[in-house]
């Protein structure tokens, strides 16, 4: 029989490597890989980069808020209530208790982002796990998991979030829990359909033939192929989550005063809507802008990932 092959011995007779379909190429080009390509395309998308920059700015403000707010966001003054936007001391006016709006909006970004993003992150992990399991294993497990999830779909997400929050009681932790429960079924549904789509591919069969356990196949072969689309969907949920979180705070089910949070600020300023409508609308404008930014970024990400498979 022939001599054993080693990488070294092959290097010697490298010239014998059959020509033809191994097309000659000038030099070795390191491959960028899938995420490299996505990043490359995302950087060239001005809208997505603009939205990303805005998100980054808001995140930075949120992190640095305690040190950069121009005034104490908790200190009120009964004499200087409801100043208008453009006031010499209060650039963006003051609220119904005479607290500086710009400081409160900056500090409010912390909680708003936190209770907007955290539920989506947790739901991304849990929902992906459920969806991939249901999609890959299929059969009765799929039926049980997906029908259970369908139950959650029977309720509108706003109603579900309010009901769960109401049952658990007010507070930041409880609103995060209830929002997570709202998003897990939605993400699981997407994860399941993406996984079902690749379950019948030949490379999954090939992996089975190599003797890999289902868990290994899901982790190594399936996850890399489904995580992209699920992630895109999850980023599009962040805006929904922020709005729902604000809604919960507005209803008094989320953050409690005097903590600044955009939804709660909308609620407390509601009484001043006739006296000073511009200031009363400011927290809503913040929610709107940040939600749009997350949506645009997620759209850009989806476009960047539409690479020939």
């Amino acid at each position, binding site marked *: 029989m022939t001599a*054993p092959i080693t990488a070294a011995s092959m290097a010697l007779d490298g010239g014998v490597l059959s020509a033809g379909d*191994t097309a000659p190429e000038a030099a*070795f080009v390191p*491959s960028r890989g899938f995420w490299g390509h996505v990043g490359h395309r995302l950087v060239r998308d001005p809208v997505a980069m603009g939205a990303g920059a805005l998100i980054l700015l808001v995140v930075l403000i949120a992190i640095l808020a305690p040190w950069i707010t121009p005034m104490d966001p908790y200190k009120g003054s009964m004499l200087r209530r409801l100043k208008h936007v453009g006031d010499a001391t209060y650039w963006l006016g003051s609220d119904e208790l005479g607290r500086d709006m710009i400081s409160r909006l900056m500090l409010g970004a912390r909680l708003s982002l936190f209770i907007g993003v955290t539920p989506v992150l947790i739901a991304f992990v849990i929902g992906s796990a459920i969806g991939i399991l249901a999609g890959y294993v299929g059969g009765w497990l799929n039926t049980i998991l997906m029908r259970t999830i369908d139950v959650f779909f029977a309720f509108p997400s706003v109603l579900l979030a309010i009901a769960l929050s109401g049952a658990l009681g007010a507070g930041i932790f409880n609103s995060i829990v209830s929002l997570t429960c709202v998003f897990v079924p939605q993400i699981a549904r997407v994860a399941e359909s993406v996984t079902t789509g690749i379950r019948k591919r030949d*490379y999954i*069969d090939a*992996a089975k*033939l*190599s*003797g890999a356990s289902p868990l290994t196949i899901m982790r190594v072969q399936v996850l890399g192929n489904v995580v992209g689309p699920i992630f895109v969907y999850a980023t599009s949920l962040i805006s929904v989550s922020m709005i729902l979180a604000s809604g919960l705070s507005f209803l008094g089910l989320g953050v409690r005063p005097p903590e600044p949070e955009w939804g709660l600020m909308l609620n407390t300023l509601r009484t001043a809507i006739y006296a000073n409508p511009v200031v009363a609308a400011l927290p809503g404008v913040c929610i709107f802008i940040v939600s749009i930014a997350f949506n645009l970024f997620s759209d850009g990400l989806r476009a960047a990932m539409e690479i020939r498979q």
Partner: protein
Amino acid sequence: MSVIPSAPDPFARDRGGPAQPLLSVSGLYKHFPVRKAGGKKQVVRAVDGVDFDVLKGETLGIVGESGCGKSTTAKLLMGLIERDSGSLLYDGQAVGERVMPWRSYRRQVQMVFQDSYASLNPRMTVEQSIAFGPKVNGVSGREAVERARALLARVGLEPKRFAGRYPHEISGGQRQRVNIARSLALEPRLVLLDEAVSALDKSVEAQVLNLLLDLKAEFGLTYIFISHDLNVVRFISDRVMVMYLGRVSEIGPSDTVLDAPAHPYTEALLASMPSLDPDNRTQAALLQGDPPNPIDPPSGCRFHPRCTLAEPICSEKEPPLDTVGPLHRVSCLARQPGSGHSAAPARALAA
């Protein structure tokens, strides 16, 4: 130092000696349930009683029209779908029993798929795809990568240039070489090639076929080669098995089956091959229409509605797979003496 340790000696893992078939398939059945509009439960008889042996060191070609059960047979042999009944004996040991569980069987039997793109994970580099099998079988990460690189070199892809590539960055022929390398990464004895070269263009196909022949000699492999291309099957196979509607219609040495076919279906298949000689062009198609519906196959011999030799007896009696020559078995009443077919005795003598 050898990176592919036990491969060069094909007899090291041999149990039953050269005369014992490497894989012996008997009574293989697979019916897929389908529900018709009427609510009646029906089945597609995809594989309907298939028996054959794969001898050690040979290449067994399997040919037949689309839908004849070739690919289902392949998947049954690999355990990718569960068989309804039948048994697989691997080197004398029953597959799926305690002596030969599927897990250890699969380490010795691997498969190359038709679609070179779909059979590689688009998010993994070529090297990762090849190293995956050894890794899940307990080979250390570094050793698995080393083995992947050696195999890449062996199938004609320079590791330095190709190891880090993704499937969409290389050509179809190169991808199929990667798939072949992956199938060899677990050091199998039997490789099942399911239309492995059918999607390649002719020049690349020839290179890959030659590579397959080289690898077979080097690693002492046995091939099951499924194809619809009779020229390719003639080139690579030692024996040929012809399937029709989930059954074996003829099996025997390539020269016999492809030069002097005994079954009218094989004859028709051969006659339908386009000829390069302009004076020898086929004018009329010998096979009319599509194969019958495998949900409701014809009674008796399944080929009789399309057969030129059909007689009333053919729709009544199911022809057994009988020996008509050395290693040559045919399921056709017209070739079997005493079957009741008018052409039987005379033809049998002539054969």
